[in-house]
């Protein structure tokens, strides 16, 4: 095994994440990310990405753009659910990690669209993992909001929401599930 293997593992994981990550635009300037959470039509992002908009443009990794309808938001958890009417059945949903707890020091990946650059990758480690937030030691920028935080196997563990004291804060997948059930 060599560092070249490590690099190809990272790019493979990034490619898999890119397929389940969308770009969300509410107007010409606003840009965030979202995750195809389940089926082809349910997309999860941050409430602050959609703001007060009822609709948004959802740009899929395969190049299609569909109109998304904001079904529900939770400002407190900074989550929003978007449904896309036209998306086909060939859109993959994100693979989520089971309930295995995150350990401090585990490698995590984030995918987003910082400063309009599509599908950019950030890599780091779990700083601390709580019920409310996953704190990740990685470098995020505006545009990562709403995108996936994933483990080393590419399984989604949370939705990136903000940066505080230099740490990336993500809403844990379990909290997303709870939001979708509500």
């Amino acid at each position: 095994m060599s560092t070249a293997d490590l690099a190809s593992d990272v790019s493979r994981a990034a490619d898999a994440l890119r397929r389940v990550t969308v770009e969300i635009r509410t107007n010409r300037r606003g840009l965030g990310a979202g995750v195809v959470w389940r089926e082809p039509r349910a997309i999860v992002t941050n409430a602050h990405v959609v703001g007060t908009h009822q609709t948004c443009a959802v740009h899929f990794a395969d190049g299609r753009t569909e109109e998304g309808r904001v079904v529900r938001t939770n400002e407190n958890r900074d989550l929003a659910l978007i449904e896309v009417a036209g998306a086909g059945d060939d859109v993959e949903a994100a693979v989520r990690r089971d309930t295995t707890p995150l350990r401090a020091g585990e490698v995590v990946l984030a995918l987003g669209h910082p400063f309009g650059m599509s599908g950019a990758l950030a890599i780091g480690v779990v700083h601390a993992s709580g019920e409310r937030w996953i704190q990740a030691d990685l470098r995020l920028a505006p545009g990562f909001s709403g995108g996936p935080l994933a483990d080393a196997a590419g399984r989604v563990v949370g939705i990136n929401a903000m940066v505080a004291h230099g740490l990336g804060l993500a809403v844990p997948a379990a909290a997303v599930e709870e939001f979708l059930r509500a």
Partner: protein
Amino acid sequence: MVSMLQTLSDNLATAAERVGRRVVAIRARRRIPSSGILWRDGVVVTAQHTIQREEDIVITLSDGTDAPATLVGRDPGTDLAALRLAPTNAPPGPLDVAPLEAIRAGSLVLALGRPGAELTAALGLVSAVGEPWRTWHGGRIDRLIRLDIGIYDGFSGGPLVDAEGRVLGVNTSTLLRGAPTAIPAATVERVLGQLLEHGHVPTGYLGVGMQTVALSEQSTGLMVMSVDPAGPAGRGGVLLGDVITAIDDKAVSDPADVLAHLDAGQVGKPARLGLVRAGQSTSVTVTVGDRPIAERRRRR
């Protein structure tokens, strides 16, 4: 097939978990606790600048239990402090320490902390490894370890750990003007031994204030500008206005030369000072003292 990325991730998390059992939270300042390492059974090492009160110190162990701790001593020179806890029923066993040679530029490292109940981790690199150096507070450190890593709450006093789970040193953010660095384990062992034995790190002391003066066009010496009459030099007969030209036959032209000569090993030993007094060369022999506590406090 398990990918190399997953293997790396597992190794890092396992290293964090293994060393994390020895990472404690120290409540000796307001607001957020600082981090420390259970270096030996009953002995915790931390960064001394995080210890802001010397009484009512409580340490939270990795299993969540609280234990009262007492300050054994601190060394502002190396920014290290030692605290004592009641020995535990389950001694932690010897610490897995990496040798100095294993600290290399480019190594992947974790900085662990416990600024509360939870263990925290940050990932980075050893960006440079330098020679032994002396901090601006006068402490001697066996290697300069410069880090490329994020500094978060609980960084100072926590361990620097490699991917194999070996401890490379103790992290601090104050010795390099705010840049992250680690004090190598070898330095920690040496300073810890002195703190446990003396409660401080003995530092050679003469009890004079000096200033560089020119003696001729070629040579300079150190003029004695103040003398502590009860100090080693004062008792040994050094007078105001004497110009010190050598210690133990080694020429000195800067106060730093004198400091370099007065390491811990010199305390209690005689030192022969070469002087120019009233134009005449002479010498006096003094017994090197240990820097008094008030002087150490002033330099903190």
